[in-house]
């Protein structure tokens, strides 16, 4: 039957079926919410520049020319001529570029990604195809995360002005290799090859993104041939590895996941207590139990491979003697603590392992697992002072400032749940944002991470690693090193 299938594919359209973990919410690049909004809109929209297949290297896409001024305040671009938006929505012009970028700063758009364009002053239109992006200050992440990704894509100005914001949520129009064909809420999203695409035509004629929220179900669907490509859980990697029909691809994530310690809480004010906890925690066990050992231990907030990765960071493993020393130094021999976790299996396992670890140094850890909605509120404002330990994961973009921005002192009571306030750290963060020299930035971010380490405010667990399994007889995937799936570069089985 496998042969028949491929035979049929030779005749009919080439269809790729991809599992997505959750339904799309909004495909408008400025108002996207989830990772799957990102992945799918990336097939529909093109920006001035983009990452090449399987890499962080940037190439021109819509831009014919793309130049950054010496002082980093201006970016000149010249568009390809004659590029058409899908579904007859007109030609791509510099006006569209201006509109696409400036709307991120517009209050009416209420973009969750407005910070991507934090330093945008305005876009100057020089001619129909030429323009300049004017910045108030140089902005290092712009080239790394804003322009090559979804915040840098071009949307049709005239069309959006015509249909209004509410008309541009799931029925979007871009100028990328695929156009949106059909959306069956909670079931699937179908994109089809854009016949008028100006660039290299993608291999797949049609991609169906099928919603399967549960990992187990997805794995079954993959085995049953109901999908061709799916994210799988670390627990089942072995099963697919042993099966020649399937290929596995994985990449370390950039996310950072940690157990935070609230330094403002009286019980944790003493750095020795925090260090004792850190020394007692058995992170490798957590990794074995929660991820079947399929991920790497994280040593600091910036992931390996990124600018700012701190290679020499200490890698903590359980050391009970040391932990007891710290406890003695703090002058306590027993303590009742509570860890707040959102109720997922992953965090629960961490907490349960930590519970067992801390028991050995006389700390009784209560696990307060709560439903995620409740969890997200506990760090708010002064309420956050009562938090003791918590398990958390933040998403990350490939620029170190994305990691450090949440732990400055003005984030206390917002996202800095450790309530760790360090003026030096704040200052360094500011510097890191406007510094454009990569080497200088590397020094800045390493230093920031050291500051965090000294104060023992977090037990870093893992950056995570995402595993995808795919039908090796059918397709061959492509993604950036941080797991951004590049469906436009997916090809036939190799």
């Amino acid at each position, binding site marked *: 039957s496998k042969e028949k299938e491929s035979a049929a594919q030779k005749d009919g359209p080439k269809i790729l079926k991809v599992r997505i973990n959750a339904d799309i919410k909004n495909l408008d690049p400025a108002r996207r919410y989830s990772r799957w909004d990102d992945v799918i809109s990336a097939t529909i929209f093109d920006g001035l520049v983009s990452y090449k297949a399987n890499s962080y290297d940037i190439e021109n896409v819509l831009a014919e020319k793309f130049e950054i001024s010496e002082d980093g305040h201006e970016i000149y671009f010249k568009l390809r001529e004659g590029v058409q938006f899908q579904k007859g929505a007109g030609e791509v012009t510099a006006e569209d570029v201006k509109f696409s970028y400036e709307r991120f700063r517009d209050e009416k758009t209420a973009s969750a990604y407005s910070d991507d364009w934090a330093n945008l002053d305005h876009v100057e239109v020089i001619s129909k195809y030429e323009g300049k992006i004017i910045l108030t200050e140089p902005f290092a992440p712009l080239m790394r995360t804003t322009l090559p990704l979804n915040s840098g894509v071009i949307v049709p100005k005239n069309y959006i002005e015509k249909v209004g914001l509410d008309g541009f949520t799931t029925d979007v129009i871009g100028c990328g290799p695929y156009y949106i064909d059909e959306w069956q809420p909670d079931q699937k999203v179908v994109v089809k090859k854009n016949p008028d695409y100006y660039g290299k035509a993608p291999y797949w004629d049609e991609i169906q993104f099928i919603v399967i929220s549960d990992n187990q179900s997805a794995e*079954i669907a993959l085995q049953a041939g109901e999908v061709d490509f799916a994210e799988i859980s670390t627990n089942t990697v072995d099963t697919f590895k042993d099966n020649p029909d399937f290929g596995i691809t994985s990449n370390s994530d950039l996310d950072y996941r940690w157990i935070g310690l609230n330094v403002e809480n009286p019980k944790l004010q003493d750095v020795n207590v925090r260090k004792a906890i850190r020394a007692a925690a058995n992170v490798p066990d957590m990794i074995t139990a929660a991820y079947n050992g399929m991920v790497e231990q994280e040593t600091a907030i910036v992931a390996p491979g990124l600018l700012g990765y701190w290679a020499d960071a200490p890698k903590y493993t359980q050391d009970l003697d040391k932990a007891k020393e710290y406890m003695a130094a703090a002058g306590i021999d027993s303590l009742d603590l509570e860890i707040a976790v959102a109720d997922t299996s992953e965090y629960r396992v961490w907490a349960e392992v930590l519970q067992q670890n801390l028991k050995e140094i006389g700390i009784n850890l209560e696990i307060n697992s709560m439903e995620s*909605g409740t969890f*997200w509120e506990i760090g708010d404002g002064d309420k956050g002072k009562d938090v003791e330990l918590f398990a958390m994961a933040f998403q990350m973009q490939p620029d170190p400032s994305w990691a450090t921005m949440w732990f400055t002192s003005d984030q206390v009571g917002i996202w800095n749940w450790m309530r760790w306030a360090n003026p030096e750290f704040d200052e360094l963060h500011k510097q890191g944002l406007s510094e454009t020299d990569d080497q200088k930035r590397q020094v800045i971010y390493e230093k920031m991470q050291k500051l965090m380490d000294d104060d023992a405010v977090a037990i870093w667990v893992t950056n995570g690693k995402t595993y995808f399994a795919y039908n090796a007889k059918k397709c061959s995937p492509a993604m950036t090193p941080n797991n951004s799936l590049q469906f436009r570069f997916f090809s036939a089985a190799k």
Partner: protein
Amino acid sequence: MFSYILKRVVSTALVCILLIIFLSLLIHIVPGDPAKTILGPRATPELIEKIHTEMGLDKTPFQQITGFFLNALHGDLGTDVFTGRPITEMIMDVFPHSLILTTASLLLAVLLGIPLGIFSATHPNTIGDRILAFLSISFITIPSYVVALIFLLIFSAHLRIFPVIGLGSSGNVGDYIMHLIIPALVLSLSWVGYLARLVRTSLLEVLNETYITAERSMGIKNRTLLFRLALKNALIPTVAVLGVGLGKMLAGTVFVEIIFSRPGMGTLIMKAIQNRNYPVVQGVSLIIALWFVFANLLADIINTRLDPRIQIGKTER
């Protein structure tokens, strides 16, 4: 009939009002912010405020409730702030799938349960009856999610006879039905047991009635007696129970839909609760409540067809 329906409408309206009041109050006390829950650290204060305004969380509960009802009367249950889709549309998209799933499983239950019940009632206290009784109780008591988990593995991972994930490709009726079979079977199992027992008891009861003896004494043959004269009486309680079953369909579908990744009312409300997507929770709850009332009404009406003694309107609500 008319006054009966009017009465039902009034009490349904009261139920809905109370439900929405309950949910609206809940929104004001429940911890958790929809914006933060969905966006995590991306949620800026402005964005949070905007989402609150769009959800109407800045209004007083009274305004919320009245506003909700005024709109609901026009069939407008609000829009999902995150996708911008009308909630009515979101519900109408998934409702048929839940309905088909429930109906299919009830149908399966009727097709299997009633004959089994008749068999038991006509062979009381035989080995067959005892075995059926044991099986029925087992079917009734094993939680549906346990059955679902086990079926998922047996049928999909090992046997691979039936596809079980999702709804199947759209527009392909055959594929849809194939995807329906296992989930419907899982859901129907407890109903099979339940109906078998119910039919058994009520049929046995009916067979002991004087009128059955009287009819037997008129020379009516056993077959006619059983399938024509007794069964109709025995089905009256069954129909009422099926009505409740149809009305409570969500209770079962939540698990089945989650485990088999089927879109439906269960998954919709589950996700909405998790995301604190209040307008969706409200809208879905309202529809569920209305459906519940409707299903019971339907059962009542069918029962008046079956049982001439029940005069609609004279029965207690």
